[in-house]
């Protein structure tokens, strides 16, 4: 069937033009006098492009074909090729889906009429970001890659500082910009050394480089720093929480749902070059991955800012994906194809899943902030009554992100677990199995984090006046969320379909693998999983029926919650977000540092006082910021060289002359 359709038209061309359309979608708005139409226009264009782009990339994915376009450009860096292979096609899917959904969400969330000053720029850079990501996946010329990469990074920056009147947004922006620029510097090294190896700036073909060559290690390191900083792998994550927390929500959705994946794509792509990666690489990836997962979710548990919590959980999910990739690399190095398959399948599928439920949650948080006007979870509560639909969709997202059946998050983690357990029969690397309990711990913490999030936002009774009168989100905001929720449920109930989606990408990553047979085997296992899912739903339905029947037969009354005898209960004595996680935080105290401001109570009748505890960015606040201060101080000392004394300036010249003379002879 695909072949027939391909006869009809060239999917690669469709995908490419879709990307270009998305990029140009925001431009008309810049020139229109009225604010509204530009936004509508760009949204419509983006959605149409996505509608064309998704099927096109699916075809490319399943047809296992590789299409190449050569772009004419006047720069002296060799030919500029655009190539779409299954790996790129796979990563293209979330780009189209999320960007389209986000732009639809923006119509309700950031209406042009209310944000005359910022809407144009926002729409424009949003399109630029989306299309640059799509084109990035096709770029095969290193220099072109960097250019697109930087366009992506910068447009993300401009989206992030949309509300730059706020100090906190500016800080987040600067941190982000510095981090991403440092990453780009690493990419300079990366592509230069690749060029030194291959003699051209074209990205090497799969398996064309040897990992034993002296530069390979440096190349890998540079890639890890450059791409890992973008992906937010620990310890390169410092920019991530504040950036994702302070961007407009639909932008956070794209940044977290797609942009992080671009960093991962870079790492995937890099690993394909080498035909014999040493064990060390896989080990490093695995360790960094599991560390990010654990610490990321631990930080998430401690957060009190809604979007920060989501951002930290992004670090966790990226960590899980990286773990999967690392395990797969270990499989490659130890020639254990089952491990490769399961690791890659888990990683890729989790990439897909994360780009469904994370945007769902971020969009949901947008709706929440829209309704309650704050990001502080301790001030929310009871929103579920005002906005039941959002609450339902958000519940789907939360369950999915905890990796709980019957939703999609579970499927990818399930594959990883299988991979770990399979090691018990392997000849080497048997200790990988110890990742299973760690991953289980991550899952447990995720449940803590998201019950905290969900309950303190939607459940109970409102803790502040702001949250008292929420309003349901509009259709344009609900539709994208519902769309993602549906996808989560779909993959959760029919995982074997999703597995067919990732197999081509895997085989393009590791051609030696006889992927058909293996995928068939695991397809059947996942089939049993979906059976269990169905059973679960039926069981739930049965219990519900039983209960309804009993409810019908007996009296139903309603009364205020029982205060255990305490009659004067107020909304403030509910368990809030902070108090809920307090116990868990105290257990993991070593990892999560809380800055606790306690007032000093003195005298017999101390006045009113507040106590607050704020989770701290350990790495940023304890290590990096001090380093910057140190550098500033030492530089200030060095700046005395420019002291305005003419004769000393003359001495500089004389000294230079003298030294050069001595050197010359």
């Amino acid at each position, binding site marked *: 069937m695909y072949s027939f359709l391909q006869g009809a038209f060239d999917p690669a061309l469709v995908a490419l033009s879709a990307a270009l359309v998305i990029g140009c979608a925001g431009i008309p708005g810049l020139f229109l006098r009225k604010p509204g139409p530009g936004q509508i226009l760009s949204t419509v264009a983006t959605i149409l492009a996505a509608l064309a782009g998704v099927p096109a990339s699916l075809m490319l994915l399943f047809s296992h074909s590789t299409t190449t376009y050569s772009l004419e450009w006047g720069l002296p860096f060799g030919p500029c090729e655009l190539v779409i292979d299954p790996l790129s096609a796979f990563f293209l899917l979330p780009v189209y889906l999320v960007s389209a959904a986000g732009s639809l969400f923006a119509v309700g969330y950031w209406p042009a009429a209310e944000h005359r000053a910022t809407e144009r720029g926002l729409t424009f850079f949003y399109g630029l970001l989306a299309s640059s990501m799509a084109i990035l996946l096709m770029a095969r010329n290193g220099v072109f890659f960097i250019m697109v990469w930087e366009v992506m990074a910068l447009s993300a920056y401009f989206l992030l500082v949309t509300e730059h009147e706020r100090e906190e947004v500016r800080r987040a922006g600067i941190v982000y910009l510095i981090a991403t620029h440092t990453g780009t510097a690493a990419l300079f090294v990366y592509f230069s050394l690749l060029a030194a190896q291959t003699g051209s700036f074209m990205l090497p073909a799969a398996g064309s480089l040897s990992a034993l060559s002296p530069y390979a290690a440096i190349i890998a390191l540079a890639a890890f720093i450059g791409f890992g900083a973008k992906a937010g792998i620990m310890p390169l994550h410092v920019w991530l929480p504040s950036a994702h927390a302070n961007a407009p929500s639909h932008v956070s959705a794209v940044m977290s749902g797609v942009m992080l994946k671009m960093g991962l794509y870079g790492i995937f792509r890099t690993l394909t070059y080498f035909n014999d990666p040493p064990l060390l690489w896989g080990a490093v990836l695995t360790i960094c991955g599991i560390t990010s997962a654990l610490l990321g979710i631990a930080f998430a548990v401690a957060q009190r800012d809604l979007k920060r919590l989501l951002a930290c959980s992004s670090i966790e999910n990226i960590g899980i994906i990286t773990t999967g990739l690392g395990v797969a690399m270990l499989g490659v190095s130890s020639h254990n194809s089952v491990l490769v398959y399961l690791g890659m399948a888990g990683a890729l599928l989790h990439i897909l899943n994360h780009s469904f439920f994370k945007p769902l949650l971020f969009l949901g948080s947008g709706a929440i902030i829209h309704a309650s006007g704050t990001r502080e979870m301790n001030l929310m509560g009871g929103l579920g009554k005002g906005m039941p639909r959002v609450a339902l969709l958000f519940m789907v997202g939360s369950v999915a992100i905890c990796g709980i059946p019957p939703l999609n998050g579970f499927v990818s983690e399930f594959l990883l677990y299988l991979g770990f357990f399979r090691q018990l029969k392997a000849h080497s690397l048997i200790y990988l199995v110890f990742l299973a309990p760690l991953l289980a711990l991550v899952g447990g913490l995720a449940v803590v984090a998201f019950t905290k999030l969900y309950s303190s936002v939607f459940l109970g009774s409102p803790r502040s006046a702001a949250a008292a009168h929420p309003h349901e989100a509009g259709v344009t905001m609900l539709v994208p969320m519902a769309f993602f929720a549906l996808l989560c449920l779909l993959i959760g109930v029919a995982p074997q379909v999703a597995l067919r989606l990732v197999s081509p990408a895997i085989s393009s990553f590791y051609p030696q693998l006889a992927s058909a047979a293996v995928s068939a085997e695991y397809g059947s296992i996942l089939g049993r999983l979906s059976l269990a899912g169905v059973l679960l739903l039926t069981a739930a339905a049965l219990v519900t029926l039983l209960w309804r029947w009993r409810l019908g037969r007996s009296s139903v009354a309603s009364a205020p919650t029982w205060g255990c005898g305490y009659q004067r209960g107020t909304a403030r004595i509910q368990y809030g977000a902070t108090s809920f996680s307090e116990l868990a935080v105290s257990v993991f105290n070593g990892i999560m540092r809380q800055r606790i401001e306690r007032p000093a109570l003195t005298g017999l009748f101390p006045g009113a006082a507040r106590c607050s505890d704020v989770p701290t960015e350990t790495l940023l606040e304890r290590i990096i910021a001090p380093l910057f201060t140190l550098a500033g101080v030492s530089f200030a000392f060095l700046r005395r060289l420019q002291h305005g004394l003419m004769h000393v300036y003359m001495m500089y010249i004389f000294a230079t002359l003298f030294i050069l003379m001595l050197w010359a*002879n």
Partner: protein
Amino acid sequence: MITLADQLLVLVLLINFILLGTSRQIFSIRAVAVQGVILGILPGLIHPFSWHLVGITIVIIAVKGFVIPQLLGRAVRSAEINREVEPFLGFVPTLLLGAIFTAISFSFAGRLPMLPEHQNYMFVPASIATLMAGFLILTTRRKAISQVIGYLVLENGIFIFGLLLAEAMPIMVEAGALLDLLVGTFVMGIVINQISREFSSLDTSLLTSLKEE
């Protein structure tokens, strides 16, 4: 003739030391003037007579010997309350350094290949020594006036070297010399006078307000 030229060059070197050693602005200005006059005479001694040469000589003597000193002197008299040099480095160390540099420049010149007909001149060492003396003044004297003087000495050093090339590429040398004179006179003079107008006195004008704090 040659011997006379060499003796004059020795005189130039002596003047360098005077400049390094003297503590009075006016005196050092005069000294530079004398040095200029001597340099004006030098071409006449080593080149055959020509009207062109006469012209050059007159111009140089006029400018180096009279115009510049006049400008500087006016600046000093009008704007300088304290007419001491106020060196950044004491006189004795400066003189010692001067001596050392002169020695260095002689050895340096010795190591460079020369035309046989220039072998027994001391043009090269003298020019380099003067150059270094100029640098020494520039680096050890605080005041604007002193630095102009240092610059002039520097130029004189270059001029001496130019004499070696005079017959090979006369236009070049003259252009260089004249342009330097232009800078020396007008621009420096003008700026000095501007400074003295801007800051009522050159003592207050140590010119150190532009810096990184």
